[in-house]
């Protein structure tokens, strides 16, 4: 079995501050994140609580009026972000539609449509259930809509393993392309907010919504800004990308995923760090080569953020390096799987722009030993690391490297 190099060749993002491809993503750190006040009638957890609502994306470009009537926001956002990513990759007509993989991730994008479909039932009128809204309770409808719109019949799946689901989807797409099961994969994450899911955020993140402002890379305090959007990437085999003259951003060279055991934490688990090194298997690169880290820090001292800080410090100590770290969630909020996918986009984009964007809302006093990117950082990276942790102690890591000239 021969392994192919896997290139990232396109990216599209819908976030509270706008919509677009790599240029938009490169500008995120400079933009107003466009967070809005948590609506008064939705029980804001505190007076200054904010939300990140994504409302600008060109649905009319990708949907007919009839399709739009039958689509929910996850479907609409996914198609727009995929369309943007394909344009970013310079792909017009897809030449291998029967083999293009579609692997998406989401934590809970179905909640909005499930609540909408269920409403007659919840109000005691089960005979009024709207059959046309029923498909939207399936979590994979956004993935299916994209496949249908573009005629893509390759390997198709939907990971729903929490906020890291999109990193899992990217890792699976990487594996499918690497092993020759797909010449191209469309991967990423989508999340939607509605009144119901905002209320759910209030309960789900209750303990993390009390701070006055996000404090990225602080060891305590901070707050989350629940958010939504869609982040999609185009992965291609080197052969496919080169054949069509694509200009890749970076290549994915390794991934690893798992969960910290009962007796492990981010710092102490020697076995865990050994597994972390698995990400180097394909790269054959040393830790000292990592130019920067795109981290999952949420701006709040969540279990996940604290584990990640422990892990970063242990890497620094073990390998005597201190790569600068930036946080995608500081620009778009806690958009769950969207933010995780954006971490990869930001890392890949830095290989082309030569700049790592600055983290917003950085804690005045960052956690001990953490080298935070506070101002845009000029880099010539040969390698970068994407790290993801969640509240259930799951982790996913991806290694990116520059494309050989």
């Amino acid at each position, binding site marked *: 079995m021969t392994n192919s190099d896997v290139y990232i060749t396109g990216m599209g993002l819908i976030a509270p501050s706008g919509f677009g491809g790599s240029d938009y993503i490169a500008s995120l750190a400079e933009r107003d994140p466009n967070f809005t006040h948590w609506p008064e009638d939705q029980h804001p957890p505190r007076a200054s609580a904010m939300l990140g609502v994504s409302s600008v994306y060109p649905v009319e470009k990708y949907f007919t009026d009839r399709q739009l009537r039958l689509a929910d926001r996850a479907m609409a956002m996914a198609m727009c972000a995929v369309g943007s990513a394909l344009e970013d990759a310079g792909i017009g007509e897809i030449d291998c539609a*029967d083999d293009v993989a579609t692997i998406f991730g989401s934590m809970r994008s179905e909640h909005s449509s499930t609540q909408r479909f269920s409403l007659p039932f919840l109000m005691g009128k089960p005979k009024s*259930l709207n*059959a046309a809204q029923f498909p939207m309770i399936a979590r994979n409808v956004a993935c299916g809509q994209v496949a*249908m719109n573009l005629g893509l019949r390759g390997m198709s799946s939907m990971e*729903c*393993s*929490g906020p890291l689901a999109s990193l899992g989807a990217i890792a699976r797409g990487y594996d499918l392309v690497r092993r020759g099961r797909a010449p191209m994969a469309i991967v990423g994450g989508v999340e939607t907010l509605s009144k119901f899911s905002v209320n759910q955020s209030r309960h789900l993140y209750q303990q993390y919504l009390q701070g006055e402002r996000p404090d990225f890379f602080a060891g305590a305090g901070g707050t989350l800004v629940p958010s939504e959007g869609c982040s999609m990437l185009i992965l291609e085999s080197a052969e496919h990308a080169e054949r069509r003259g694509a200009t890749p951003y970076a290549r994915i060279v390794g991934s690893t995923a*798992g969960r910290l*055991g009962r007796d492990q934490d981010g710092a102490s688990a020697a076995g865990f760090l050994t597994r972390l090194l698995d990400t180097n298997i394909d790269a054959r690169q040393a830790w000292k080569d990592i130019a920067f880290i795109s981290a999952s820090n949420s701006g709040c001292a969540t279990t996940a953020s604290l584990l990640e800080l422990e892990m970063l410090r242990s890497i620094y100590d073990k390998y005597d390096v201190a790569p600068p770290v930036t946080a995608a969630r500081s620009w778009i909020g806690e958009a769950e799987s969207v933010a995780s996918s954006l971490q990869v986009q930001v890392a890949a984009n830095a290989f082309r722009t030569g700049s790592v964007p600055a983290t917003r809302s950085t804690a005045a006093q960052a956690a001990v030993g953490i080298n935070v990117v506070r101002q845009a950082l000029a880099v010539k990276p040969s390698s970068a690391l994407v790290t993801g942790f969640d509240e259930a102690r799951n982790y996913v890591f991806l290694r990116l490297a520059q494309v050989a000239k």
Partner: protein
Amino acid sequence: MSQSRRVVVTGIGAVSPFGIGAELFWNSLLGGLSAIRPVESFDASAYRGKVAAEVPSSVSQDASLAARYGNPQEKATLYATIAAQEALQDAGLPLVFASEARAGCAIGTLCSGAHNLEKYGRAFVYDDGALPEGGGPPDSIVVSYQLNHLTGHFNLTGPSTLISTACASSTDAIGFAFDAIRNGDCDTMLAGGGDIIGEVVHGGFNAVFSITTSKARPFDRERDGFAIGEGGAFIVMESLDSAVARNARIYGEVLGYGLSNSAYHLTSTSKTGEGEGLAIRRAMAEAQLEPSQIAYINAHGTATSANDSTETNSIHAIFGDHAENLYVSSIKPMIGHCMGAAGIFEAISTILTVHHDQVPPTINTAGNEAGMRFKLVKDKAVKAPVQYALSESFGFAGACSCVVIGKYKHDQLGN
């Protein structure tokens, strides 16, 4: 697959509509029993379809049961945990792995959390969005709850995922687990999932005329849909090296899987079966098998008018004249359509078919599907040599998934 690690099945567990236990599940299938009855867990009088295959109340209402399985606050997760534990015990593996063991987990589910979600939905409508009593913790309505409970309960630290590709979910999960082992990411994976009957989903399928008003009759011209089923099922998948090293019993070998999207319609299968057939072709290519080597197909066989004709077309297109030699059956008339967990129940049935050379029947059917040329096993189980078999799953949004199971030969000595 010559350069890849081989993947075998060493443990099986099930909580089915027949009750707890893989042996009970299998014997009930061979006996042609049906667990489909009038719905008990909610008032179905408002719907034209009023039947389902529910886990017996002696299991679902046993308050003491949850405490023995880590006290999950969600029913599908409870069924999944019970089934996973049975599978681990059956495989002779520990119930709590060492963190360094890096055992993983791949779950497929559709409706996990649906009961709690209904309670949160009602609280949102009627109680100003307060936390509902008996609705479980807030994370129990996020589908990843099932995954996080299982990985925590059994201390699974390897690659893990929860896949939700509608009714193809847990077949897809087997594929994920297959890759994880084959690629050398880990030696042991639990693959499967738990699912439940929720009134919203029953009402939804009723609204699209997919719930039968009488009996599920796959591949029968009089068919009128399925009954929803529920439960949890898991298999232990293991590298052959690991299984041989610990002298484990091997039920069969997972030889490959295939996925596709039919890219046709959000709820309907395609007319030609071409997109669905891509998953089958990919699975066989992965397994390095020719169509003529397949002896049995566990069909998706939902008894809906669209699925069964599509599936028939795809089987005929791929297998050609060999279709006449193919045994085919659907177990959905016996356990209902277990949604995201349907695939793992059917994969287990397929594995046991290969292991025992016994094909479970498709009950209730006249077997008179238009143009059907394969050997639909009706009424009673048949004994037949089955070296290689397929299990097929199709879901909403074009999701198609298929796995290939092969008989493990005792004279094989690993890689």
